[in-house]
């Protein structure tokens, strides 16, 4: 019987006498057992059939869209913060100190303070609209313009 080829055992304290030639041959027979191409083909087909096709893509490919969406959202938030956040004009102090006030009250306060201290119509209107936070803008615009016009008429 041929001496079986030994794998790399890295100079172990190997008990060479422990196995008989027949048993070594049994190990070699087991080592030489290989799958047929038909088996490989069948296995590949089975595995691919059992795993959903849309998840065959790699992790990165599957999450690429999510990464783009989140990346875009974060970039947009950063751009908005730097372009708008730093340039936001200070609200009148009375408004800042009364955060619990309703939006309508805040608008009234802003309108009052800006119309008194600043005669610029557009600025007062824009500031009031900004604070309105989604209320009916058309009505507010109308009211502001009307009140400021009254103020101008009165002042003239």
């Amino acid at each position, binding site marked *: 019987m041929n001496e079986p080829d030994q*794998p*790399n*055992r*890295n100079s*172990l*304290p*190997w*008990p060479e006498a*422990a*196995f*008989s030639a*027949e*048993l070594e*041959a*049994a*190990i070699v*027979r*087991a*080592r030489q*057992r*290989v*799958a*047929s191409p038909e*088996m*490989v083909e*069948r*296995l*590949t087909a*089975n*595995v*691919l059939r*059992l*795993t959903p096709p849309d*998840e*065959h*893509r*790699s*992790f*990165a*490919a599957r999450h690429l869209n999510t990464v783009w969406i989140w990346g875009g959202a974060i970039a947009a938030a950063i751009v908005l913060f730097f372009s708008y956040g730093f340039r936001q004009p200070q609200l009148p102090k009375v408004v800042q100190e009364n955060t619990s006030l309703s939006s309508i009250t805040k608008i009234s306060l802003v309108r009052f303070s800006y119309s008194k201290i600043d005669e610029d119509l557009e600025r007062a209107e824009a500031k009031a609209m900004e604070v309105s936070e989604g209320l009916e803008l058309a009505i507010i615009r109308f009211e502001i313009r009307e009140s400021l016009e009254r103020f101008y008429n009165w002042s003239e």
Partner: protein
Amino acid sequence: MSVSWEEFVTKHAQAVLDSALRVVAIPADAEDVAQEVFLEIFRSKRLSEFADQPALIRKMANRRALDRLRKRKPTSELDGRELDSQGHDPSEYAIAAELDKRLRDGLTFLPMREAEVFCLITFEGCSVSEIAELLNISQGAVAKSLCKARGRLSTTLGIARTEVRQ
């Protein structure tokens, strides 16, 4: 490294099947084991990690095959024996077949770590350092497990050889 699932399965199918077949010896069982291994990898969603470490896949295949071997009920393979025995002395062939079976039975009685180390070294040809890294143990522990496994198998199979000779 980005690799598609199809590429991964195609590339490693042969190696996984071979590893499983060396331990369980029955093709149908080897296919089941290989399928389990691939499904486990698929569910783990760590494809790129496995793609870089073929030895890790072989280790998984070996472990699942040993599990299968332990759970297996006593069976007898009907296909292929007559064809395989062509050109050999029938008595020698019968003894060899019996020893093959005893070898696999002997593996089921080994502690899992010893069986795993034995299979990876003798069947897969892995180096001791490679196994130490795979199993996260020292090289000394690998050598010790291997010597113990060989000792136990030698006792089991020595008795078996005497029996089949009689």
